[in-house]
Each structure stands twice: as structure tokens, then as C-alpha cells.
């Protein structure tokens, strides 16, 4: 039942990703039977990771993982802290409700669930990331899969809505990128915790005593 720190963080990300891959395999072999196993795989994996992370989260220690063993400042870091834990729990509850609704609403094919789990995967990455530029990349993956989910209905209304959403969302994410540029110019780092530290130092220096 207990997992190492690295495995817990990886499991949080790999659970939705493997569910997405399973759905894509279902599309490849045109079998609808994979939809429920993919959902169970995602649900069990995510809840297992949350349970494994709980002891260290409740004692106030965040879980850290460096992708590929590359430590900061060169590598990409992932962190699961209390806020991530609660947000993941909310995400699981809402996504399960949404999944049940899609099952009642219409018989969507496995490709729909591929994009559904891809959106959940990028949401999980968004919650775990330590780096403001990776935040931008995860946001883009999340919005790309949600454009397709919006247009999935296939009606004219859905396509126009997806197009409007795409234009507004892409425009606003570029303003976010402008913000990333401003923060990078001010602090010289992209990692969120170091950025807070450096901006505090900058503020302390600029305010007269």
C-alpha cells in the first residue's frame, strides 16, 4: 500500500495518462469495452496516490520529484503539497460526476474519453508543476483537449462555440505569456518558490525604511 515519494507523484500523473492511452487503444480496435476499465484505472490510481501521499501531506511535508533525475535549476520539478492534494480530490469528485453524466447522456466513442482523460492528465500536471512556464504548457494542453471536447457534439453551434472559445482562450493565454516575460525579467528565474523569494528581496530593497 505504501509507495515511495517518487512513485506517488508519478502515479498521480500516470493514472490519467494510462487511462487516455487505454481509450486510444479502444479506438484503434473499435471496442467500447475499454471505457469502464479506463475509468476504473484512473480512479483507483488517483485515489491510491492520494492515500499514499496523505501521511506526509498531513504532517506538512510536500512531496517533490525531479523528472528524469535532473535537479533544479536545469530540470523540471513536480511538487505535491496540501493545496495540490485538496485540488486533486476535488478534481476526482467532479471528473467522476462528469464521467457518469457522459455515460447517461449519449454513447460517446472511446476517442471522446481519450480527450477527456487527456484533459484530466493536463489538469493534474497543472496542479503538480513547480515552474511558471510549465504552467503555460499545461494550460495549453488542457485548452487544446477542451476545444475538441466542446466541438465533439459535431453540430454547427458546437463548432462555432469551440472556435470562439479557442480564439478567446488563446488570446488570454498569450497575455499570461506576457506576464511570464515580465516576471522573468524581474526575477531571472521561472520556478515559483524561488521567484517569490527573489521578488520579496527586490521589494525589500526598493522600499525605503
Amino acid at each position: 500500500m505504501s509507495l515511495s515519494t517518487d512513485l506517488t507523484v508519478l502515479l498521480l500523473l500516470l493514472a490519467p495518462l494510462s487511462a487516455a492511452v487505454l481509450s486510444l487503444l479502444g479506438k484503434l480496435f473499435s471496442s467500447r469495452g475499454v471505457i469502464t476499465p479506463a475509468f476504473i484505472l484512473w480512479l483507483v490510481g488517483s485515489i491510491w496516490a492520494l492515500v499514499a501521499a496523505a501521511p506526509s501531506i498531513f504532517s506538512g511535508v510536500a512531496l517533490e520529484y525531479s523528472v528524469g533525475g535532473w535537479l533544479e535549476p536545469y530540470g523540471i520539478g513536480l511538487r505535491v503539497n496540501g493545496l495540490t492534494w485538496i485540488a486533486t480530490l476535488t478534481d476526482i469528485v467532479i471528473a467522476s460526476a462528469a464521467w457518469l453524466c457522459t455515460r447517461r447522456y449519449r454513447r460517446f466513442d472511446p476517442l471522446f474519453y481519450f480527450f477527456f482523460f487527456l484533459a484530466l492528465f493536463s489538469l493534474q500536471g497543472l496542479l503538480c508543476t513547480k515552474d511558471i512556464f510549465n504552467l503555460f504548457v499545461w494550460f495549453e494542453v488542457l485548452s487544446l483537449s477542451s476545444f475538441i471536447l466542446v466541438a465533439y457534439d459535431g453540430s454547427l453551434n458546437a463548432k462555432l462555440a469551440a472556435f470562439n472559445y479557442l480564439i478567446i482562450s488563446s488570446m488570454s493565454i498569450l497575455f499570461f505569456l506576457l506576464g511570464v516575460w515580465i516576471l522573468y525579467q524581474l526575477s531571472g528565474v521561472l520556478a515559483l518558490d524561488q521567484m517569490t523569494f527573489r521578488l520579496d528581496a527586490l521589494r525589500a530593497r526598493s522600499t525605503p525604511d
Partner: protein
Amino acid sequence: MAKILIVGLFCIGLWGILAGRSLIRKIIGLTIFNSSLVVLFIISGRLDGTAAPLLTIPGEPLFVDPLPQALMLTAIVVGLSVTAVALILAVKLYRSCGTLDVREIEDCIHESEH
């Protein structure tokens, strides 16, 4: 000079997105807007020096900041995929309505509902 270029591209892109009535014009506006931010990052990365960021070049202590270049490589790829999805939606709307004008597409949707 670079500042004028960046502000110009920024304004042209924003105007294209907001004022353009054609779907294709909006997509072109989005791409230009994206390019202005790419130019902004790249220009700000080479304020210290202009040599390539290879530490093996002797006698070149001032080189460009490699981080913005790596970031923009990612941002260009992401922008390309967003453009691809937008173009697919535009093609699908054109095939159904026979027009690229946003207002005419809205009229077309109204008519098909009644």
C-alpha cells in the same frame, strides 16, 4: 527599432483578432500576436551578448540567454498546434455554411435551427 516592431506586431495581431469578421483573419491575427511575444522573448534574451550560448567558444564571455530561446521553441510548437485546431474548425464551418464571415455563420445557425 525592435520595440517598435514588437508593439506594432502586438497591435496588428490584437486588432486582427478583435475587429476581423472572417475566421481566417482572426486566425492570422492570433498567429501575428503570438509572433510578437516570440520576438519580445528573443530580443530580451540577447541584451547581454550576441554569441551562441556554447561555452566552448573561447573569448566570448557574453552570450545570449538560452532559456528564452528554449521557452519560445515550446511556445512556437504550442502556437502551431492551436492554429491547426482553429483551421480545422474553420474548414468544418465553411463546409457547412459556405462562408467564413462570423455574422453570416451565426445567421446560418439560426436558419438551420428553424
